[in-house]
C-alpha cells in the first residue's frame, strides 16, 4: 500500500456536554451515576403539554466556549426542531439549532510535531441530548437520564489533513472547554464525543472524496488510530478502483479497525423549523463583553507566555498548560520559588508521579503550591541539598507539613560550615587509608566520587556537596 499522492480531508464534530447542574430545558439533574430513568420528569420524557424552558447557564457556557474558539456570537440565535423518529428521542424531535446557531466562524491554532496548525470552526450550536437505548435480545431498554442534557456541537471546517492533527485538534478543544470549566472533558463517560468525517483525494484535486463518518470514538488515541486506519482503507479502496460508500463506521479498539455500522440514507429530511415553544436567544454586546473579560487565559497563549516570560522550554510549557489546574499550580509555586525551570521540573516529575500513583487530582494534592515553591527556594538558598529535598518532598506528601517544619523536626538542614565538613572528611579519610593510598599513587582512577559518597553518607546527606568537593579535592591533591 502506498499513500503517496493522496491527502486526507478530515472534519470533526465534537459534542461537548455542558456541565450544568440541570438539563437544558428543565430542572432534572444531570448526574452521571443516577439510577436508570431517575433523572427524568414529564418535560424530559416529552409528556403531552409539557414545554421547554431554556437553562441560562447553558447559554452562558456556550457563549464562553464560542468566544474561546474565536467565534462570532450571534445577537439573535434560534432554536429549531430537528424532526425524526427514534425511541430514545422522547418528543419525536430534537431541539437544536439550524440556520441561526449561537456561535459561528471561529478557529483554533495548535502545534502538531512542532508545526503550527489552524483549524476553522464553522459553527457551534446548542442542542439537547437524546436518551440511551440498550438492545438486549428480544427487547430494548431506554434510559432517558441523558435526554435533555445540554450539548454544544462544535463543528470544524474540513481543514484537518492527518490523524495526528485530528487527535491534537480534539485535545485542544478538550483543554479549552476544561479551562473554561464548561465541560469535564471525560470521553469515557460521554462528556465529549467525537464524530470524524474522513475522505481522501488525490493531492491537487479540488473535489472532496466521498466522506465516511466515524462515530463515537472515546479517546483521542483511538481517534488517531481510527483515522489512520480509515485513511489507509480508503486509499486502498480507491487504488483498487472501488467506490467509497457514504456510511457511518465505528472503531473496534480490539481489532484495531473500523467497521460499517450503517449506510447513510440519502440525506434524511429533518424538516427543521423554528421551535415555537422557545424565544430567540438574544445576546447583548454588554453580555459578550462581560464574558470576554471573564475568559481565563487559554492553554495556547498561556504556554507561549510561559516560554517567553519564564524561559521554559516548549515541552514544559505545553505539559504544564494542558490542564488549567496544573498551570495554576505551577504559577503559584513559581511565584514562591522564583525559579521557573526548577518548579516545572519538580511538578512534571515528582509531583505528577505521586499524583498518578495516588490517583489524585492536582487540586487535591497534599503539597500546596506555596509549599513546593518554598521547598525549591530552600534548595536554591542552600538550606537543603537537592538530595535532602527528595526526603523533604516525600515527607511533605505524607504529612502535608511545611518544608521548614520538616527540616527543623528532622534536623535536615544542610551543613555548610567548612570546619564541620572538614572534620567529617578527615574521619572518612582516616577510616579508608588504603583507598587514600590508591588514589594518591594513581593506582586507581576517579576515586574522588567514592570519597564524596562516603562523606555524604557519613553526614546523612546533609553536607553541602560543593563544599565537600572543594575540601576533598584539596586534601587529596597529589
Amino acid at each position, binding site marked *: 500500500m502506498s499513500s503517496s499522492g493522496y491527502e486526507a480531508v478530515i472534519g470533526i464534530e465534537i459534542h461537548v456536554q455542558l456541565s450544568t447542574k440541570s438539563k437544558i430545558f428543565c430542572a432534572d439533574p444531570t448526574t452521571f451515576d443516577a439510577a436508570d430513568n431517575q433523572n427524568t420528569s414529564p418535560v424530559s420524557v416529552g409528556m403531552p*403539554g409539557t414545554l421547554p424552558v431554556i437553562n441560562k447557564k447553558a447559554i452562558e457556557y456556550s457563549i464562553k466556549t464560542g468566544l474561546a474558539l474565536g467565534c462570532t456570537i450571534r445577537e439573535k440565535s434560534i432554536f429549531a426542531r430537528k424532526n425524526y423518529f427514534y425511541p430514545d428521542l422522547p418528543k419525536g424531535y430534537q431541539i437544536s439549532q439550524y440556520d441561526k446557531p449561537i456561535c459561528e466562524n471561529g478557529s483554533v491554532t495548535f502545534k502538531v510535531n512542532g508545526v503550527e496548525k489552524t483549524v476553522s470552526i464553522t459553527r457551534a450550536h446548542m442542542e439537547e441530548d437524546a436518551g440511551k437505548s440498550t438492545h438486549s435480545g428480544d427487547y430494548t431498554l431506554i434510559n432517558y437520564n441523558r435526554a435533555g442534557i445540554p450539548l454544544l456541537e462544535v463543528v470544524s471546517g474540513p481543514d484537518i489533513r492527518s490523524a495526528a492533527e485530528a487527535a491534537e485538534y480534539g485535545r485542544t478543544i478538550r483543554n479549552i472547554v476544561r479551562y473554561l470549566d464548561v465541560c469535564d472533558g471525560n470521553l469515557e463517560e460521554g462528556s465529549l464525543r467525537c464524530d470524524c468525517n474522513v475522505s481522501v483525494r488525490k493531492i491537487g484535486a479540488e473535489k472532496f472524496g466521498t466522506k465516511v463518518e466515524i462515530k463515537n470514538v472515546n479517546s483521542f488515541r483511538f481517534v488517531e488510530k481510527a483515522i489512520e486506519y480509515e485513511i489507509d482503507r480508503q486509499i486502498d479502496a480507491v487504488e483498487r478502483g472501488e467506490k467509497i460508500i457514504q456510511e457511518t463506521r465505528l472503531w473496534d479498539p480490539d481489532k484495531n479497525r473500523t467497521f460499517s455500522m450503517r449506510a447513510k440514507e440519502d440525506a434524511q429530511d429533518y424538516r427543521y423549523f423554528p421551535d415555537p415553544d422557545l*424565544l430567540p436567544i438574544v445576546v447583548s454586546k454588554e453580555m459578550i463583553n462581560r464574558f470576554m473579560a471573564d475568559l481565563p487565559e487559554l492553554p495556547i497563549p498561556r504556554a507561549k507566555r510561559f516560554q517567553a516570560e519564564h524561559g521554559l522550554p516548549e515541552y514544559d510549557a505545553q505539559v504544564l498548560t494542558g490542564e488549567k489546574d496544573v498551570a495554576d499550580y505551577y504559577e503559584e509555586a513559581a511565584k514562591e520559588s522564583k525559579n521557573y525551570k526548577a518548579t516545572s521540573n519538580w511538578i512534571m516529575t515528582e509531583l505528577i508521579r505521586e499524583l498518578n500513583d495516588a490517583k489524585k487530582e492536582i487540586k487535591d494534592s497534599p503539597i500546596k503550591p506555596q509549599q513546593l515553591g518554598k521547598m525549591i527556594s530552600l534548595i536554591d538558598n542552600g538550606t537543603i541539598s537537592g538530595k535532602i529535598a527528595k526526603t523533604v518532598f516525600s515527607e511533605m506528601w505524607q504529612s502535608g507539613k511545611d518544608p521548614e517544619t520538616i527540616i527543623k523536626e528532622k534536623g535536615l538542614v544542610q551543613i555548610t560550615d567548612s570546619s564541620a565538613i572538614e572534620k567529617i572528611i578527615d574521619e572518612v579519610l582516616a577510616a579508608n587509608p588504603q583507598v587514600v593510598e590508591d588514589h594518591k599513587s594513581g593506582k586507581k582512577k576517579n576515586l574522588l566520587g567514592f570519597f564524596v559518597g562516603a562523606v555524604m553518607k557519613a553526614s546523612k546527606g546533609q553536607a553541602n556537596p560543593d563544599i565537600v568537593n572543594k575540601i576533598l579535592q584539596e586534601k587529596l591533591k597529589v
Partner: protein
Amino acid sequence: MDLTLASFSEIAEAVQSKKVSAKEIATHFHARIEKLNPKLNAFTFINGNAVHDAEALDKRIAQGENIGPLAGVPFGIKEMLCTKGLPTTAGSKILQNFVPPYDSTVVARLKKSGVVVMGKLNQDEFAMGSSNETSFFGSVKNPWNTDCVPGGSSGGSAAAQAARMVAGTIGTDTGGSIRQPANFCGLVGVKPTYGRVSRYGIIAYASSLDQAGPMVSSVKDAALTMEAICGFDEHDVTTTQRKVPAWSKNLSANVKGMRIGLMKEYMKGSINSDVQATVDKAIDTLKKMGAEFVEVSVPMTEFAVPVYYLVAASEASSNLARYDGVKYGYRAEMGNLSAVDLEDFYGKTRGEGFGKEVKRRIMLGTYCLSSGYYDAYYNKAGQVRRMLMNQYLEAFKSCDVVLSPVTTSPAFKIGERVYDPLTMYLNDIYTTSTNLAGLPGMSVPFGMSQEGLPIGVQLTATHFEEQHMLNVAYALEGASDVKGAKPHVF
C-alpha cells in the same frame, strides 16, 4: 338561589359565607351531568371525586380560610388540558389511557381559585375540527337542536355549558375553537391575547396559535375566569410578564365614544341572513349607545384560512410526533416485538391511534416542512402572517374593537360537512386571523336564527386590550333580547 343558573360571584359568595356548601353545588351539577350527558355526549370522563373535592373545600372554609373568587364553582375542562389523576386524551384513541401526573397551569390556577373540576369535556381529536365530529369519543350534540353540531373543536365545553351541566368550562382556541362553538351554543367565549394564558400542560396542536380561555354564560364570568388563569408562568416562556388587569371590576357598558371597526373584507360574501341580521342589530344597538363606527381594512385576511392551515398543520406534524407508542398512550398489538421493524411499529401504532382528520393534517404539515417546500409553504405562510398582523395593528390605530360575524351561518347539521373538509375549513374564515395575529377575540351571543339556533357576534381587540372587547360585549349582553333563553336540552 337557582343553583343551575347561578353566576360565579353568586356561587363563590354563597360557598364562602357557608350559605350553600360546595358539596351541595357539586352534587347538584354532578346529577345534571349524569342526567344530560347521555343526550349530549359532552363529557368524556366524569370526575368521581368531584363531590369529595368540594367537601375538602368546605372543610377549609369551615377552618376560616378564604378560598378565592371562584370558590366552589364547578367547571368542566376540555380534554386538551392535563388534569392530574384524570384522563387527558385530546379526544384521541392514541391517548385513551393517558392519565397525566401533573396539572396544566390553567387547571392548577383554577383549582387555586376554588374551582371544583367536574370532569373532562369532549372535543375534536387534537382540536382538529370545527364540529366535534372527529372525536374518538363520538360526536357531541348541540343542546339547542340535537341534530346539529355544537361546533368545535371545543364542542363538549359548549354543549356542557349551554345545558348548564357545569357553571363554567374551559376551551382552547387555535383557529376559532372557543369562539365558534360558543357562537353555535349561545355562550360567551374568549380567546385571550397570545401569551396571556400559559400553555403548560395543554396538549399542543399548533404552539404558536393555541390559547385557552373561558366558555361561560356571561361576560363577567368570562372576565373572572380570565383573571384566574392568565398571567406569567415560568413553565411557558411565551407567556407575558404583564400584570393581569382587573377585567371584571373594570367592566363597563358605557361604550360612548368607543370606536368600533367594521372590517371591509368581513362585510362581503355569502353570509346567512340571520347572521347578517344579528350583526346589523348589534351595530345598531351600539350606535344608539353612542359608539362610533369606522370602516377598517385588513386585506391579508383573504389568505387567513390557507395560512392558518399551513402554519397549524406544520406545527402539528411535529407536536404530534411524540405519540409513538413508546412511552405512554396507545400501542398497537403486534405480538412479539422483536419480530417487528421499528417503522412498522410506528406505522401501526400511529395508523391505528390517530383518526382521519389528524392524519390528514400531519401529512399536510409534514409536506409543508419538507426540504424544497419549506420556503414555498411554511416560510411564505410566516411572511403573510407577519403582514397580516401589521395590517391589523394599522387598523387598530383607528378603532378600539373590530366587530364581525363569528361564522357565516349558525350551527349546521351533524354529518352535513364531515366528508367535505374544504367547506369545513372555510367555517373558520372569520376566526383564524385573530390567532395568526395573536390578538384577543371573543364571541358574545346576541341573536337567534329562525330555527331557534343561537347567533353571536365576534369582537377583536388589539394585543392585551381585552378590556375594550369585554366592555363592548358587556354592553351588548345588557341590551340583548335573547338573554335567558334556554336550549332544548336543559
